[in-house]
Each structure stands twice: as C-alpha cells, then as structure tokens.
C-alpha cells in the first residue's frame, strides 16, 4: 500500500497530509513564540524604574527590514498563484525575489547586530559631567563608543578591563594568550541615555545634531560596570537577541527550504505538479508565519 493523500486532499477533511502537518507545526510555533512573548512582557513589566533600555535600536533600519519581509511575503503568494495557472516562469521570478529578500533581511540584521556589539554602556563609580542635549549634565551612566589604541573594540566588559593571565595546559603549551590590562580608554558618549523619556530623548538628539562628539578619557578604576550591547547587558538585550536570533533562524530555515523547492527540487513540477504546488504552498505558509512573528516583534522591540 502506498501512503495516500500526499497530493490529493482527503475527501472528508478536504486537506492533503502536508497541509495538516504544517499547520500543526505552526501551532507549536505559536506556543514557542507565545512563551517568549510572555517572558518579554513579564520582564518588561517587572523591570525597575529606568532599567529597561528603549530607543537604542534604529527605527529606520527596522522599518526598512519590515518592508523587506512584507515584500517577500507577497511574492510568495504571488508565486504560488502563478503556479496555479501553470505559469512556471513567473513563479520562478517571484520566488527569486523572495529568496533575495530573505537574505537581504538577514544581511541587514547582522549589520545591526554588529553595530550593537561595539556600542557600550558604562556605569561609573562617581558621576561626571558631560554634554547631553545641549546642556551640561551630571551622570554616572553613559552610552557611547570606546576607542582604544585606535580601534573600536567589540564585546568588552568589566572583566576585560582587568585583563587575564596566560593559561597553559598540562604540557606547558599556551592555550590562551595573556590579555593586557586596560588602564584607561577613550569614550565618545552619546547625547542620550535610555533613562530619558522618549520625548527627552528626541529633544536631546535634536539639540546635539551637528555637534561633534565630545571625547572623554575614562580610567578603568572608575568603572563600576562596563558592557557592550550584548545579551548580558540587560534583560532587554537578552530578550532582544533571543527573539530576533530565533526569528532569524526561522528566516534562514525558510529561505533554505524555499530555495530547495525553487532550484534543485523543481523537477517535481514535471512529474507531479499537484504535489509540487502543495510544497510551494506549505513552505509559503511557513514563510508567512515568520512574517507574522516579525509583525509583532518589530513594534514591541523597536518602538515601545
């Protein structure tokens, strides 16, 4: 006996197997992202005054990426619709756009990530005076960029400032080279801090527009805590990176599947067109779901 309903729908349910499968899978995905969104809400509601970073992500980039993803979503359905009328060439073109969009999205996202890894917050032991929003402000928490020996380093944290000794294994071979201690570093503070309200932040940005960055020297001994915008910076970045990375993995997975069906798997269009269309539809459903998740992700992490 062969497995039935791989391409034709079962009469009483009206569905073919893969369609049932993908919807079940998506149901489980709903629970997965639902749990993460719950965690987001909880951490956010539970965050103390002035500890939840906001306004640190680039809204224009996020918006652009949203457009990219929406576009890819519409090309998927249009491609599938083209197959419905037997227009394989049209389908090929539409899906090519989808795949390009997918990788475009990931490219932009990785660019954003990179930017975060060398953007810092420093908590000082004693407040200092800096320009913020056109006036002099006393503060012990600064955002900004580090310059050290002419580089903008990635991933620094408090421990990095203290350096680390050489590590040798049993045979005396050096497994990890010594890292030199940092005495002091240059810091270019941003004109804003997330402890400001959105309005104050917008104001500060406007005021400082066109002014060059001021540069200060910070002694390592004055630093209470230093962290790049990495997951351990705060629960905000923790959930930001977790959610977007998981979403990114879905984008990647979806793109690979769509590419496989589009390229090497396209032979099936000749042998079993109905099943081929089913595959396109099913991969499309997954793709729309990924888009749908982003529709919620974008406002809650970029805007709120």
């Amino acid at each position, binding site marked *: 006996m*062969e497995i039935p309903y791989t391409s034709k729908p079962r009469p009483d349910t009206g569905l073919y197997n893969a369609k049932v499968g993908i919807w*079940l899978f998506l149901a489980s995905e709903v*629970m997965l992202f639902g*749990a993460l969104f719950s965690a987001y809400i909880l951490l956010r509601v539970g965050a103390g005054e002035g500890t939840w970073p906001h306004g640190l992500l680039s809204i224009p980039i996020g918006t652009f990426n949203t457009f990219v993803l929406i576009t890819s979503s519409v090309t998927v359905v249009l491609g599938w619709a083209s197959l419905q009328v037997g227009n394989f060439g049209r389908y090929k073109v539409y899906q090519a756009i989808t795949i390009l969009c997918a990788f475009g999205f990931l490219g932009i996202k990785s660019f954003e990530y990179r930017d975060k890894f060398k953007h810092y917050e420093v908590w000082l032991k004693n407040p200092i005076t800096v320009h913020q929003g056109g006036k002099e402000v006393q503060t012990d928490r600064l955002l900004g960029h580090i310059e050290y020996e002419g580089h903008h380093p990635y991933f620094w944290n408090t421990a990095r400032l203290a350096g680390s000794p050489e590590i040798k294994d049993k045979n005396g071979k050096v497994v990890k080279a010594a890292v030199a201690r940092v005495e002091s570093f240059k810091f270019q503070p941003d004109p804003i801090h997330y402890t400001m309200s959105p309005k104050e932040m917008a104001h500060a940005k406007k005021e400082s527009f066109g002014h060059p960055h001021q540069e200060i020297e910070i002694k390592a001994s004055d630093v209470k805590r230093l962290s790049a915008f990495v997951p351990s910076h705060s629960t905000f970045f*923790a959930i930001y990176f977790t959610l977007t990375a998981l979403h990114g993995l879905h984008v990647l997975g979806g793109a690979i599947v769509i590419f496989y069906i589009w390229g090497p798997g396209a032979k099936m269009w000749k042998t079993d067109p109905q099943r081929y269309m089913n595959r396109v539809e099913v991969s499309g459903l997954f793709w729309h779901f990924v888009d749908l998740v982003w529709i919620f992700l974008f406002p809650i992490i970029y805007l709120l």
Partner: protein
Amino acid sequence: MQASAHTDAHAHTHDAHHHEPSFLQKYVFSTDHKVIGIQYGLTALSFLLFGFFLMLCMRWQIAHPGQPVPLIGSLLEILIRNTDGTPLLAGGQMSPDVYNIFGAMHGNIMVFLAVVPLAFGAFGNYVVPLQIGAPDMAFPRINMASYQFYLLGGLTWFASIFIPGSAAQAGWTSYSPLASTIASYGQAFLLVGLVLLITSSLLGAVNFIATIIQLRAPGMTWMRLPFFVWAQFVTGFLLLLAFPPLEAAGVMQLMDNLFGTSFFLPTGLAVGGKIAEISGGGSPLLWQHLFWFLGHPEVYVLILPAMGVVAEIIACNTRKALWGYKSLVYSVLAIGFISFIVWAHHMYLTGMGTKISAFFQTTTMIISIPSIIILTCLFISLWGGSIRFNTPMLFALAFLPMFGIGGLTGLPLGFAAADLHLHDTYYVIAHFHYVVAPGTIFALFAGIYYWFPKMTGRMMNEFWGKVHFWGSFIFMNLIFQPMFFQGMAGMIRRMSDGGIQYAQKADAKLIGGLDKVYFDLHTVILWAAVGLAVCQIPFILNLFMSIYKGKKVTNDNPWEATTLEWQTPTPPPHGNFTKEPTVHRNPYDYSLPGAAKDFTPQNQP
C-alpha cells in the same frame, strides 16, 4: 485476511519492484514505522534500565550514608570526575553532588528518555498506523528524523555524566538560579539535549496527529477508533503544544548559563558570598511557570498511552466491549485540555496569592474527574466478562488499583493547605511513582507481552511472564508504600543522606525529630529495589530468547482480538496491509450475540 501465505507472495512481488534494501536501510535508516517503533522501544528500554540503575545507587546511599557503593563504586570513581579532574566519588562513596547528579538524571532519563519514548515513540509508532489501517505514518522520513533526534538527545545526556564536573544536578525541574550557579557544563548539556528531544517529540507529534487525521482507513470513523489511538492522539497534542514553552525556557536558561544573561536571575543575587556579576532583573518564578506549563501536561503524556494500552488489553481479555466507550473518549479529550491549566499546583508553596491558588485548586480537582471516569469505565468493563488471566492481562489489571492509589494520593496534594505539609516530601515521590512505575511501567510491560507476537510471530513465555509480574508487583509496592509514611512524617525528598541529619541533631529537647523507624524503612526500600531488579532478569531473558525460541503463533491473531493490527500478516510487511482494509464496525465487538465466534474483527462486514 488471515492467509499469510498469500500475503507473503504478494509482498514479495511488491518488493521486487524495488531494490533489495541493505541492512542499513532496513534496520538503521528505516522509514518503516514498525522498525522505527522497535528502535524506539529498545533504546527506551535501555534507558529505563539505566535510570533504574542510577536509582539503585541512590537508594544504597540513602540506606548506608557514607559507605562506598558496592560492586561498582570504584568503577564510578574512575568514570565520574569533578571539574578539576578529582573523582567525585572519593573511595567509591557517593558525595552529595553525585547524589544530586544521579537524582536529576534519574528523573530526566525516566521521563524523557524512557517512558515517553516507550509509550509514545515505540507503541505509538508500531501500533497506531496498524490500528487505523494505514500503510505507514504520514511522513515516514520525518518519523525517522524524530528517532534520530531522540537518540542524539539521549546520548548528549548520557555523555554529560562523564564530562568534567559531570551532569546537571539541579533536579529534573532545573530550577533557576540553582541551575545557573553550578560550575559545570552539565546543565548546558542537559538543555541542549532537551532542545534535541523537544525537536524529536515535535516531529513525532506532528506525524502522529496528521496520520490519525488523514490516514484512517475507509469506514474508520472517529468513533470507531480504538481507545488506544484516541489516547495517542491526545498525547500528540500535549507534546505538540506543551513542549514549546519549555523549549523557550530552555533556550533562555542556556543563555543565562553560557552568555551571562539574567532571564531567571533577579537583581542583587549573591552566590557564595559575592554579588553576582550579572545585570539582574529576571525572575526565578518565570522558569517555574514555563517548566510546569510543560511539566503537568507531561505527566499526562506518561499516563494516557498507558491507559490506552490497558483499555485494549482489558477489552480483549474480558472478551467484551469496553463499557462507556464514548465517556472514555470524552474524558481523555477533557484531560488533554484541562491539563494545560493546572500547572501551578506544583507551585503553591511559592506563596502566590489565595485567588490564583484557588483557581488552580479548582482546575486540579476538575481534572481528576475525567481520570476517575476513565478508571470507572475500565472497572465496569470487567463486569460480565470472561476474564483470561494471561500475563498482559495481569499487568493491565494491576495497573488499575496502582493508578488508583497514585491518583487518589494526588488529591491531598491538590489542596494548597494540605500541600503545605506534603510538598516536597516523600509523599509526593510516592504519589507520582505509583502512577508512573507500577502504573505506567506495568501498562508498558503489558503492552510488550501483548504485541510481542505481532512483532515477532512468537509468544513470550507465560510462566516467566508470571514470575516477572508477581515479583514486580510485590516489590514495587514494598518500595513505594513506605514512602507515604515517611513523607507524611515529614521526610523531605532529594536528601543525599536520607534525612539522617535531622535525626542526629535531634537532641533530647528538640521537638519533632524523625523517629528511627522511618530511617529503618530505607533499608526495606533498598532491598525491595534490589528484589525488583532481580525480577527483571526473567523479563529481559524472556524478551530476547523468545525472539528465537518462543512458541510460534499459529495464526495472525493469537489473542483473537478485533482491532485491525491483528488482521495483517505477522509480522506485517512494509506497507502493512496487503489490500486497503475497510472498516465496518466498532472496535470492540467481542461476544456479539449471534456471531459465530466470540470476536468480530473491525474489517468484517
């Protein structure tokens, strides 16, 4: 349909179209649900044995604090090492760390690597497509991937015991912050393995549900499904929808452990006298919520397939229809649904307010009603039967009172006020072991004895089966019954010394120390556990020897059952049925008035 000779010939011509499959294709990378089912079964049984072995070491430690583990102590000393390479079992004695490691691994292995894969992966895979008259699962290759992810996850856990610092030691519940404060990669291995296992069960669940929805044979309407299939169907949904939140939680805890985030770590945490270098701002309770959101449905994943197996065997061996088939089906659906909203009964003692705990107490009481209905239906099914006491039936019958004890003792735990005293004592241990060990495990034994002839064409030995049954039955009760008393008296679980420090410190003026009897019971339990182990030897021998030496079955339906799996050739060929079966009747048409035989198969017009 009973003519095997004819089928064999057919199967052969059918196969001739394809290449003769190689050994690898046939047994290792098979996409045949029956082979995958057997793979699941053997792997899960091995893990079951291993989980039991860990527990034997622990029971020894509890009964003999400070003494080396006999026989294998020195071997363990070599194998299990600290992060700095020193042995964790100095002189073959289990340190508290090792006790915690074994405890956490026992819980995790038993639940995720032994019972679920056996009940869902093995029986579900082997039996469900046969019972609904399908040629295979809806997605055979995904089915294979499901097993492979399971194996990989299991091996990850197994391997983690031997890494420096050894495996996870924060209990199977992995509560944060404890799980994030132990200096070993054990917890990370546990979480990675967990993600693999969740992937496996996700693939499995999608496959099962899609198969049951789509591949039922003509005439196999929903209300003609054998109860076992219903149980698996609901179990599939539990796995599908309850596991993802744990996956999310697992990923977050992995981030906490490896990338220094603070999802579950609050501000101001100070471990070992130092303020932790973390951002803080997280919530330890969030982990508990996400864990138990899975945790509770998970326990029904452990029990529902077992109930399914028992129902099949009882119907067959009483030679009559199950009483209240519809009530059974609706109850199992109700359990499935309600099990998602009772989870916080594991968290009463976190101190959440009266209103929310009233809500969870209500749902907990409500969910015991469908369980009672299921059990009652099975009991009433006995009435008017003609009961055959073969080995599968003995195990199935024993399941009923054992589950009854386990289930009933769940009730006091379900009330926040009573749980105040019983929480985290051996009473809880006894409660759930009554459901999972003499409950589920007995049902699984029953299933093995029952379906063995279908898988191999030979019967298992009845005499040794009965020895296995009576030995297991007696020793199981000797192990778990005393725990109720210990727990009620206040003995707390997860004590590496069996609670002895309470007694030692009990100077004359101290009120409420534990009496010596409760510690003496440790010895009883230890020897009962050893007895239980010995009683498994006849089973293991019987299982493997019967494959070659067992009595050959004389026809495809040795138990004279009605469901479709018995209407195939033995063992069923690739593709299962020689021609698509058509279903004409209810699943349990035993002893129909006026019928020629006392059973009428579902595909008989």
